[in-house]
């Protein structure tokens, strides 16, 4: 069977499975829609959290980013796992004990204020939409490359699938679909990784393979060889970074704290039966996540080595099939600056901006002709980092079914995260804005309908963002973390660990953290992208890491304002006392 048929079969089967699960687990009440009835086994929830968490960015983009960043890529590996320690130790058990439906629920109740709830909803919607745009773009990439449909149709098909199980099933449908999606995506990630590790080092376990010698008789360790090859071509060594220490520190911290403040992750811990289960569940989630994360680093390193060896100094006429396939999809480009018909891969951009291909004719070697202005340097190859994981099986010449599996895995990763995000957006609209703020007398049936309408509207907006994407998948996602770190995390953390934190302090903190972080990121990324260089950054911290400063501002402002205003009322002290103790957790539907 040819690869294309296999891809259709694998993707078709996985979609059929998700829809079957969605129909089997339809939600009948708001409690089932928001938190799956609060009775999910901690291991199952851990697996669902892992799928929820590992997005198109983790599956598709991360190893590619690490491949090109080397040591600097560690920020993603530590940042996106270390956040689970914060979640398990500082937030999850207490929020579960609190026992409501949403993150704004906690902030609104703890800070006895509808305004605080609305501020939290604004933060949540902002974070979730920046995040979801990346997922839909991931779906589009996978569809257009592997299923040969235009990105527009890819996104529409993806939206349709998510619609079926998120809108019908709510959290209950999403939870069980995510378990299936986790299995698909982890299997799809590990199989090619094992193959590639074995091909390069003779050791099939990637985490061990990267610490072993290369299989080519040179007696060099993989990382030694990679450093040698890269420095020969003029790149920085793989194990050396180019970012400053303070920037690495801040980005890692922003990603960790941001992870712990992401509403779609936090809300997963509302679905387990009790507080102690929330702790266990966070541990299981990290275990399932770690399987992919300890593999992603090695995959990135192997991919870089493989890429250089198969592309650099090769004649374009003999370019491997995957190279021209991705070129046809605009994600690889080659500009023969020195006219020798060979592809030189060197540091720097091969030409200015993203490739714009001219419609007319071919270049001298049969390549697609670019309209971009060439740059001065010797590099001739443009490669979009997002393709590395998807192209890896092809680069390493793996069998067709492995490629099909990766296509299904990439879709599972993007769809599972998109569904989780849609759910927190819809529940914050129907529950926090309607039920708890503007329409308190809405019936349960009305609220459930509103949740479904909101989910539908959110899918349409997400789809639009996916078709007209604002940037790279991982870069878009990185925004969400800074904002979560600067707004939601400090408010929740102080709500649990400080008796004295009051309404005025929390609101002032959230607003100042959010506004500062938003303006800093927007200034360097949107309004003045040309100024986005280290010399202009505050304390040398890039927009990716600025969430840490936003967080410090949030804490400082909140504590200062709280100390000048009235302490919270006695019943709020009672509430905090109560959530600190695990005994007596109720199911949300008992309320």
């Amino acid at each position, binding site marked *: 069977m040819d690869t294309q048929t296999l891809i259709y079969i694998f993707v078709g089967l996985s979609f059929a499975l998700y829809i079957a699960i969605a129909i089997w687990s339809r939600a009948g009440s708001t409690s089932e829609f928001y938190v799956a009835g609060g009775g999910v086994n901690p291991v199952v929830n851990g697996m669902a959290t892992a799928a929820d968490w590992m997005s198109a960015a983790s599956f598709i983009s991360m190893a590619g980013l*690490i491949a090109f960043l080397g*040591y600097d*890529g*560690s920020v993603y*590996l*530590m940042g996106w*796992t*270390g956040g*689970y*320690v914060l979640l*398990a*130790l*500082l937030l999850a*058990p207490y929020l579960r004990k609190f026992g409501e439906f949403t993150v704004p629920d906690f902030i609104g109740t703890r800070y006895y204020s509808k305004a605080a709830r609305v501020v939290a909803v604004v933060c949540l919607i902002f974070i979730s939409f920046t995040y979801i745009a990346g997922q839909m773009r991931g779906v589009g990439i996978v569809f257009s490359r592997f299923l040969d449909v235009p990105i527009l149709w890819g996104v529409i098909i993806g939206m349709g699938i998510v619609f079926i199980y998120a809108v019908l099933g709510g959290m209950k449908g999403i939870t069980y679909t995510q378990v299936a999606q986790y299995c698909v995506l982890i299997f799809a990630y590990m199989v090619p990784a094992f193959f590639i590790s074995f091909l390069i080092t003779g050791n099939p376990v990637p*985490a*061990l393979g*990267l*610490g*072993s*010698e290369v299989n080519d008789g040179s007696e060099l*360790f*993989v*990382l*030694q060889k990679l450093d040698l090859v890269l420095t020969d071509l003029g790149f920085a060594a793989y*194990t050396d970074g180019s970012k400053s*220490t303070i920037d*690495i*520190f801040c980005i*890692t*911290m922003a990603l*960790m704290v941001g992870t712990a403040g992401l509403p779609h992750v936090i809300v997963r811990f509302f679905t387990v039966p*009790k*507080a*102690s289960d929330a*702790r*266990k569940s*966070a*541990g299981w989630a*990290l*275990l399932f996540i*770690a399987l992919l*994360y*300890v593999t992603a*680093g090695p995959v990135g390193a192997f991919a870089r080595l493989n890429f250089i060896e198969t592309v650099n100094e090769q004649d374009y006429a003999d370019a491997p099939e995957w190279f021209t396939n991705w070129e046809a999809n605009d994600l690889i480009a080659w500009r023969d600056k020195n006219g020798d018909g060979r592809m030189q891969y060197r540091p720097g951009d091969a030409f200015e901006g993203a490739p714009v291909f001219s419609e007319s004719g071919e270049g001298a070697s049969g390549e697609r002709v670019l309209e971009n202005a060439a740059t001065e340097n010797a590099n001739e190859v443009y490669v979009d980092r997002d393709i590395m994981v998807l192209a890896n099986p092809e680069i390493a010449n793996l069998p067709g079914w492995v490629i099909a599996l990766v296509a299904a895995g990439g879709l599972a990763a993007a769809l599972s995260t998109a569904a989780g995000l849609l759910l927190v957006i819809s529940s914050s609209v129907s529950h926090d804005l309607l039920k708890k703020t503007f329409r308190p007398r809405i019936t349960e049936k009305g609220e459930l309908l509103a949740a479904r309408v909101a989910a539908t509207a959110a899918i349409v907006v997400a789809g639009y963002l996916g078709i007209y994407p604002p940037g790279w998948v991982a870069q878009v996602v990185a925004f969400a973390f800074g904002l979560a770190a600067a707004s939601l995390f400090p408010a929740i953390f102080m709500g649990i660990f400080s008796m004295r934190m009051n309404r005025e302090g929390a609101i002032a903190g959230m607003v100042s953290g959010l506004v500062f972080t938003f303006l800093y990121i927007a200034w360097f990324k949107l309004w003045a992208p040309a100024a986005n260089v280290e010399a202009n950054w505050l304390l040398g911290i890039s927009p990716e890491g600025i969430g840490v400063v936003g967080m410090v501002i949030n804490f400082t402002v909140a504590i200062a304002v709280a100390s000048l205003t009235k302490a919270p009322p006695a019943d709020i002290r009672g509430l905090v*006392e109560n959530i*600190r*103790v*695990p*005994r*007596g*957790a109720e199911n949300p539907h008992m309320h």
Partner: protein
Amino acid sequence: MDDTQTGSNSDADARQAGVRKAYWRANIRLLAVLMSIWFSVSFGAGILFRDFLDQFSIGGYPLGFWFAQQGSIYVFLILIAIYVVAMHRIERKFDLDDDDS
């Protein structure tokens, strides 16, 4: 609490408040230890002291690089596991656990 006399209710409340306070202190102590380890392996070994640690190696990995891309993740997992076990022990000691009873 098996106090049924109304007169000793405030005593019982005070005792209960004391228990909760001691429990919370034990929890904070545990958190402080675990969070310091969390910080040292990732921000310490993986970032601040990476250059120093890179002169040693573990297999073909420079040690600091290994902590940044592999080691810290393993330690994170161990930390959560320790927390789950130790916290459960603390809760049982103060009789505040949520085991089905």
